[in-house]
């Protein structure tokens, strides 16, 4: 302590650190509770499914696909750097990849016993690299906070279309898509299916948070500053036809909700209908990020998991032959009822592995993403720094777990069934 006071540089650093911490703390979510929160951003809508950037026909281009392709591109560039000019005395990138391969070769040969372990390598190393870069690119700045603004109308269109489709009203779904939400409500507002769907929809989504983005730009980003109070709920911005107010669901709508004080210039009286576009100098909507960590989408993790487990089955069949590998799971239930039951369980286990793979990676990376967002709000500017390190670490760990588990499952799959009595029978047959 004495050293700290006597050294002016250290003292200054300590004061600056404390000041930054204080500013960060007061500017963040905690400060917002006391009317400060000057560094708070609008809370993004956190949802499990990936957001789509654009629609090509009926195909939705998701932000996670973009990140996955970006990850693949980065891997290919690195691979190109490493292998375009292979030398006996390796260069930097070549050395890195060689060390990486050597690690996996040793692991595979130890797990599978000898050179046949090498057949796992192409898939296992691809899984490692793919997962690693998906995870790491997800921590880049700009991911999750630069994107397109999805207006409330657009949001409602998509949601209603989905709901109608799910309920089996294909025509209504098409109409929503074609007309847009406002027009649709004018023409179909009295339709009882529509009312039904809207009621359930608002009871579920009425409290969803939306953000007022300043300006009318189509591209936005979640910025730090003045954001915390710049959010409204869905039921505060969606206007409904006046004849809709007969229903109970109306309780959750604009008429009964206290008008948010931040909607300056927008003071709807009881009878006035208004829509999101009426908000002055702003645009109410959701931020649809252009980039979202590829492994925070279940499609990605499920795809890799399926690829991994299909590869495992392939290795099993290739090494043991069809009957050899299938014989690990299928037994004659009359001769060997316990074996048949255990085989069935093992068969189910193979499927379960896909699910555990999928959700292990997804859960870790999705939680990490939310952790980063949460820290960004709790301690803006600085809170994220240690957790970025943590996320990089988790990214490697998850990649290693995914790839090494695939390797282990693969090496288990190529082991012939070790039923002692079967072997004895075979031995006895051969002896006779």
């Amino acid at each position, binding site marked *: 302590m004495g050293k700290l006071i006597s050294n002016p540089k250290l003292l200054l650093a300590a004061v600056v650190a404390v000041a930054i911490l204080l500013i960060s703390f007061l500017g963040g979510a905690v400060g917002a509770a006391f009317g400060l929160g000057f560094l708070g951003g609008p809370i993004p809508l956190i949802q499990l499914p990936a957001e789509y950037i654009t629609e090509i026909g009926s195909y939705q281009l998701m932000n996670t696909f973009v990140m996955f*392709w970006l990850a*693949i591109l980065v891997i290919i560039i690195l691979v190109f750097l490493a292998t375009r000019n*292979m030398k006996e005395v390796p260069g930097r990138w070549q050395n890195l*990849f060689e060390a990486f391969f050597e690690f996996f070769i040793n692991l595979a040969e130890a797990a599978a016993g000898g050179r046949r372990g090498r057949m796992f390598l192409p898939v296992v190393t*691809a899984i490692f690299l793919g997962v690693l870069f998906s995870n790491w690119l997800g921590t880049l700045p700009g991911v999750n906070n630069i994107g397109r603004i999805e207006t409330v109308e657009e949001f409602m269109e998509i949601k209603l279309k989905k709901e109608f489709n799910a309920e089996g009203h294909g025509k209504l779904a098409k109409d929503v898509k074609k007309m847009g939400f406002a027009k649709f409500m004018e023409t179909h507002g009295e339709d009882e299916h529509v009312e039904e769907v809207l009621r359930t929809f608002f009871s579920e989504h009425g409290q969803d948070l939306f953000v007022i983005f300043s300006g009318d730009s189509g591209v936005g980003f979640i910025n730090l500053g003045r954001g915390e109070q710049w959010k409204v709920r869905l039921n505060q911005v969606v206007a409904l036809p006046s004849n809709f107010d007969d229903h109970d669901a109306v309780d959750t709508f604009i008429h009964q909700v206290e008008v948010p004080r931040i909607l300056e210039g927008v003071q709807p009286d009881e009878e006035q209908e208004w829509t999101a576009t009426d908000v002055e100098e702003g645009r109410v909507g959701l931020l649809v990020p252009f980039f979202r960590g590829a492994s925070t989408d279940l*499609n990605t993790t499920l795809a890799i998991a*399926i*690829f991994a487990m299909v590869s495992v089955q392939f290795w099993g069949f290739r090494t043991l032959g069809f009957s050899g590998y299938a014989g690990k799971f299928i037994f004659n239930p009359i001769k060997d009822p316990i074996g048949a039951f255990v085989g069935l369980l093992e068969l189910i286990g193979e499927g379960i592995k896909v699910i555990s793979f999928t959700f292990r990676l997804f859960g870790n990376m999705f939680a990490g993403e939310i952790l980063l967002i949460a820290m960004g709000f709790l301690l803006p500017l600085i809170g994220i720094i240690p957790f970025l390190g943590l996320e990089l670490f988790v990214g490697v760990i998850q990649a290693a777990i995914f790839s090494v588990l695939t390797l282990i499952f693969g090496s288990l799959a190529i082991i012939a069934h070790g039923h002692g009595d079967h072997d004895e029978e075979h031995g006895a047959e051969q002896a006779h």
Partner: protein
Amino acid sequence: MEALGINVPGLLTQLISFTILVIVLYFFLYGPITRMLDQRAERIKSSLEAADRARTEAASSAEAVEKEMANARTEGQRLIAEAQDAARRAGEQIEQRSRQQADEIIARAEAEIAQQRDSAIEELRREFAGLAVLAAERVVERELDTARHQELIDSVLEEGLSNRQN
């Protein structure tokens, strides 16, 4: 499934993407890297073997040199011994010969001396005899007393001796 965001087009997209990644990595990473690693392992192995061979060769040649040296040393020693032997023998021979020669010379000299002495004695005897005869003649000629005899003999002897001494 819808709430989780899993859908068929998305799943297919990611499956195809990942499959492409696996294929690209198989051809552009797995192939070259394992080839390079194997090549290097092979090379290290062969150079280790070469080094081993070189070492054993060096060891065997060192052994050969050692043997050669040992041979040379024994050969040298043998030669030295032989030379010493020969020298000793030669020396002995020379010594023996020179001793023999010396003996011969001595013998010859002794013989010569003896011969000369004999001849000198002979000569003396002959001279003494002549002197004696001479002395006797003189004695007889004069017939003088004994003292004269003696005087004569002495003078003769003295004469003879001094002659001889000259």
